[in-house]
């Protein structure tokens, strides 16, 4: 016995307007689902010079600051993957420095310079990462650059502003978007000269998360114009 016996085939006919409406809706859904791309600061990177061939780069542990966007209330980094993000930024920075054939100097390898000095420089990461150097930091940098005048410090700082999630009011149809964001800053500073060799900043319009492709893209964009080593000879 034929299984289709007794059943009538239902033929769905799509009108042209239905197909058009579905196509438009699909496009709109695709557009709305697209995550916002990270944006580089309009000023772009500041690169003063190429780096001397015998330069060594000391990468400071990145600093992340979490605060509420509306009242600047400080928030605990541990609630937002603070340590994991720090490790990710450090790894990306280290890889970038290595791809430029520069020597990465670890804090413990710095002939007699106590790690405390790096802690004190790191405290100034919010200013240093934007290329702001005052006389106090200048003295600390020069102390690091005493042994090798081509030592540079790479400082990274992420200012995370935690906002509220998007909302939807089913009665009025009003909607809002998540307003969390992060501004990633990085600067390479020559220790002996206390000069900014390179700096850049990127705006990420979402909470940074280690598994986020947007965060990874933002990091790549941040370091994409990191200076090349000067070719000797």
């Amino acid at each position, binding site marked *: 016995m034929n299984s289709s016996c007794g059943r009538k085939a239902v033929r769905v006919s799509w009108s042209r307007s239905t197909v058009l409406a579905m196509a438009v809706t699909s496009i709109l859904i695709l557009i709305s689902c697209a995550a*916002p791309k990270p944006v580089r600061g*309009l000023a772009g990177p500041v690169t003063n010079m190429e780096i001397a061939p015998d330069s060594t780069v000391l990468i400071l542990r990145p600093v992340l600051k979490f605060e509420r*966007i509306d*009242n*600047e209330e400080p928030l605990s980094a541990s609630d937002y993957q603070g340590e994991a993000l720090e490790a990710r930024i450090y790894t990306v920075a280290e890889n970038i420095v290595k791809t430029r054939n520069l020597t990465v100097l670890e804090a413990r390898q710095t002939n007699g310079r106590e790690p405390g000095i790096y802690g004190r420089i790191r405290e100034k990461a919010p200013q240093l990462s934007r290329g702001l150097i005052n006389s106090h930091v200048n003295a600390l940098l020069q102390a690091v650059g005493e042994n090798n005048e081509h030592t540079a410090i790479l400082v990274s700082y992420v200012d995370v502003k935690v*906002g509220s999630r998007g909302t939807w009011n089913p009665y009025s149809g009003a*909607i809002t978007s998540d307003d969390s964001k992060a501004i990633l800053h990085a600067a390479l500073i020559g220790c002996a000269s206390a000069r900014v060799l390179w700096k850049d900043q990127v705006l990420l319009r979402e909470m940074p998360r280690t598994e986020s492709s947007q965060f990874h893209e933002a990091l790549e964009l941040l370091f994409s114009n990191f200076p090349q080593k000067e070719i000797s000879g």
Partner: protein
Amino acid sequence: MKRARYVTPLLPCILLVLLSGCAAPLKKGIYLAPDFQPGAVSEINLLPPIDARIDKEVEVDLEKQLRGEIRSMLKRRGYKVSDSDRVDNMEQLTEDELKSALPGLIRRLGPPGARHVMVVLLLDVKTKFTFGSTGTAEVAGFIYDKESEKLIWRDKGIGKAGQGGLIGMAMKGMMDEQAISMANRNLVASIPKRSD
């Protein structure tokens, strides 16, 4: 009838309690000097707004959408407002510098004769196309007393606007303006009202 005779004299009192309950409380700003006296602020000199955005994709008329609106809001709060022209290198002023409130910086702001000066920064504006459209804006404001060379008020205003559906999608171009207006309102809401 007897009960009504007791309740009627109480009605004005009940109304008064209800009305005072409806009065909006002052928003707690990020900083308000403990000795801030609205009556002592005879005039606020409003400096040209600073565009401190990283992403400047959305076009904003700073004069109209920030200075104009904030001027009106300050007037509604009882303050006399005057405008002044741009000071040298004002565009390069950062939020951090303004927060640091160094006396040297405060002296530079506004005309020499002005006492209370206000600086407004536009920190961010973004519109987004979603199942409708949304807009977000972030502004920051600072009021300095040039006589004492101190910061007397500082706050931030966040504005979020949006509408779902096809109508919302068609309104995308208006969302930035709505968000900025809301951010301005939230910013000024923590400035104590002046009543005299």
